[in-house]
């Protein structure tokens, strides 16, 4: 077989955890190879080893059959290996073209030769169908174009092995289609592609072969063609996964949260971000706000949680006006909030896990005594949540949150917010970036919270999630609620039309 890259017996230890344990992965020239695994299974570590960001403790890497040493990303680049990170590495106030040539500029007597670079970039973008504007500044471009710039960076450096770390996590459905098309084109031109994912549908559609990791070990490499999604997920999680959500019909009680004609303007250019929004969430139901990203969902959540101020209207919590209440007051009224941005709002990354788990309750009598933190109690609490919610980390509660994998960070936030036993739970894209096992778990937790009598307000971009989880759907478009739908009756296509703004219904 014509292997372009072989990683043989790779082992990598971190303090308290073996991230990769004797993993072997062989990449055939011209194939699209998926790397599948749960959060914390060791996918990113393995790719970082290949890209020279980490040094393996054991094992070797071969290129075209010959062993090579990759000590840093420059070595990787010299070996023809390029990587698109999940969070793009671009200079925001430079142009697309400048970003692509950064580090490999053609220079003549100290002067940049931009014309040659431009020609090469334009030729590459046409050849692979990567639509870009070479002179646009990165900060003005869409996420999709930024990703294409990252791909062009690899092509410009004549890389032949392309690593993608969860490339679809940040894209809209249309952009995902386009990316898949591009990736197929690259493979057809002889490039070899490795991509990290935990979206089974995507792997089924795109990949030729798939290597599955579980808890740092390699479960196996399979041909994707004959295998089913269920089999793949069983390999990944180690047990059968239930895709459908089991829940009884909601038995809604009295309203917990009510919004009356809430409007919010942008401080910057006075555009209406929320436009006369009214709805209510009752005890024991899951209400979903569906919409394309950036249509006012974030602002809506800020308004309810107190992170942003509203301009007009009223927000009522159990009948009490909280429009101007402090965030602490709202937290005390048993509003929990799983935030959209877990690094910005959800966690203090330099705190330990146990410190993060009491972020909202450190001031209660349970965890402090005359102003002194009761560390014993805090650690006990952390141990309990780690056990109950299966949060995996190197050193238990003493682990610094920054060193945990994204999925486990999210689990920690969910654990903290649900353990507060809220009356209102605001969950913003709670399963983003998580693997099927964790998604299943979080969905169950949301339904359990509902059945306990909690009012759940879910903000989601994933239509499958919206349809299967909600008891009532509101569609938001440009800051307005444009439709109120029954999840049983509405089809995904119909919800999609409302989300795109091409259909308007009545919002009662």
């Amino acid at each position, binding site marked *: 077989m014509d292997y372009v890259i072989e990683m043989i017996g790779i082992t990598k230890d971190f303090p308290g955890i073996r991230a990769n344990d004797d993993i072997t992965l062989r990449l055939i020239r011209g194939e699209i190879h998926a790397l599948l695994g749960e959060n914390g299974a060791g996918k990113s570590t393995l790719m970082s080893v290949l890209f020279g960001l980490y040094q393996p403790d054991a094992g070797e890497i071969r290129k075209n059959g010959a062993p090579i040493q990759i000590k840093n990303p420059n070595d990787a680049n010299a070996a023809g290996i390029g990587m698109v990170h999940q969070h793009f590495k671009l200079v925001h106030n430079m142009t697309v073209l400048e970003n692509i040539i950064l580090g490999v500029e053609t220079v003549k007597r100290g002067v940049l030769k931009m014309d040659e670079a431009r020609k090469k970039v334009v030729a590459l973008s046409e050849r692979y169908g990567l639509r870009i504007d070479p002179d646009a500044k990165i900060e003005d471009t869409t996420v999709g174009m930024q990703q294409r710039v990252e791909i062009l960076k690899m092509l410009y450096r004549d890389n032949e092995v392309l690593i993608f770390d969860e490339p679809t996590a940040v894209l809209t459905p249309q952009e995902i289609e386009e990316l898949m098309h591009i990736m197929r084109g690259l493979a057809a031109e002889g490039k070899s592609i490795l991509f990290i994912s935990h979206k089974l549908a995507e792997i089924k559609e795109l990949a030729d072969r798939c290597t599955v990791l579980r808890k740092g070990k390699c479960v196996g490499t399979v041909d994707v063609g004959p295998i089913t999604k269920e089999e793949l997920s069983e390999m990944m999680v180690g047990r059968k996964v239930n895709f459908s959500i089991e829940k009884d019909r909601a038995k809604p009680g009295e309203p917990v949260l009510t919004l009356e004609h809430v409007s919010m303007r942008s401080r910057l250019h006075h555009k209406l971000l929320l436009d006369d929004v009214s709805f209510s969430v009752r005890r024991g139901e899951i209400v979903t706000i569906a919409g394309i990203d950036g249509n006012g969902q974030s602002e809506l959540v800020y308004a309810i949680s107190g992170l942003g101020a509203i301009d007009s209207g009223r927000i009522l919590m159990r009948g009490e006006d909280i429009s101007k209440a402090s965030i602490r007051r709202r937290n005390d009224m048993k509003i929990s909030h799983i935030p959209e941005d877990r690094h910005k709002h959800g966690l203090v*990354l330099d705190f330990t896990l146990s410190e993060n788990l009491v972020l909202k309750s450190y001031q209660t009598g349970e965890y402090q005594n005359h102003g002194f933190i009761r*560390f014993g109690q805090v650690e006990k609490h952390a141990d309990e949540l780690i056990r109950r919610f299966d949060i995996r980390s190197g050193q238990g509660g003493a682990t610094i949150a920054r060193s945990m994998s994204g999925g486990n960070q999210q689990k920690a936030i969910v654990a903290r917010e649900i353990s507060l036993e809220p009356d209102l739970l605001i969950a913003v894209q709670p399963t983003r970036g998580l693997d099927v096992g964790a998604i299943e778990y979080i969905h169950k937790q949301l339904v359990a919270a509902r059945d306990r009598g909690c009012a759940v307000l879910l903000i989601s971009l994933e239509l499958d999630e919206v349809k299967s989880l909600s008891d009532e759907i509101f569609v938001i478009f440009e800051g307005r609620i444009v439709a109120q739908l029954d999840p049983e009756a509405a089809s995904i296509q119909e919800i999609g039309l409302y989300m795109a703004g091409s259909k308007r219904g009545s919002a009662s």
Partner: protein
Amino acid sequence: MKKQGLRNASASLIAILAGLLAGFVILLVTKPESALQGLGIILKGGFNNGMKGLGQVLYLATPLIMTGLSVGFAFKTGLFNIGAPGQLMVGGAVSVWVGCTWKFLPGGVHWVMALLMGMLAGGAWGLVPGFFKAMLNVNEVISSIMMNYIGMYGINFLIRGSAVFDSTKNQTKNVLAGAVIPKGGLDKVFYNLTGNYVDVSSVNAGILIAIFLAIVMYILLNKTTFGYELRACGFNKSAARYAGISEKRTIMLSMVLAGALAGTAGALMYLAPSSGMHIHVAEVLSAEGFNGIPVALLGLSNPIGIIFSALFIAYISVGGSYLQSLKYMQEVIDIIIAMVIYFSAFSLLVRDLIVKVGKRRAQRSAGGEGA
């Protein structure tokens, strides 16, 4: 964890050695024949002059601990308090004024009251940049630099026209006997005896107060809910807000406390007239205030670490002062001391270098085994 502590300590030591080397070069350039002897004197530091020398180290370290705590504490909460010199001067001036004019207070109470008022005044001076940062998001570096100059000129102006001004010496008068920081028995330890003459060092109970306050700050930061809020704010303001912590209140309180610590430095300095410390009416910001920055950096902002870094800088300064015996000019001595302090501030950089070199070594040996 142990390894990390060791790495931090060795980083600080390497930085210090580099500073000494640079200082040695200057000694060589200015007066080559006594350079080696000079280096010896610097290294011998506080041990040059018996118990009095050691006492001087403690005396000089006292304000440095306080300003180091001031800067380091603000660092921990994500703020850069470059306003320590101003806070120190305002705190010192108020304590001198109280020490000179509040004659109605009895001896044991007078110095405590003067100290407290100095602390309060420093806190008030810190509140101003804190308030603007919290309410209007004005950069605290700019506003506290301006507060430094307002403090210095304001005090010069007010002192000149007041009852505490000694016009013949162009400085403040001695505070009353009851307002002087007590010796706390330290004068019975740190002195030299030449014949019948007892040469007492300037050290007083201030060093005990400074160490006590450092321990208090350590506990406050690491063991209390207030410290939890401060650190949460310092690491991630958005998450602190999300958790319901009022970041405005936290920023203001943090600057008030930082100011109070620097104000205490001023009070401890100027409530000891026998050591010759007075507020001069001159256009100079106090060096002790600025030196809080390298002290905090060298101590990696840890209150306990700051005690030791302040002691070190005081030790080197005392050593430098004895260089005069070799006829080095005062300016050269100041430059050498400044070099050592300057290089000390690189300890963070050195720490990262150690990590990098260690990694490369590990890789090379691993590669060797493989081949």
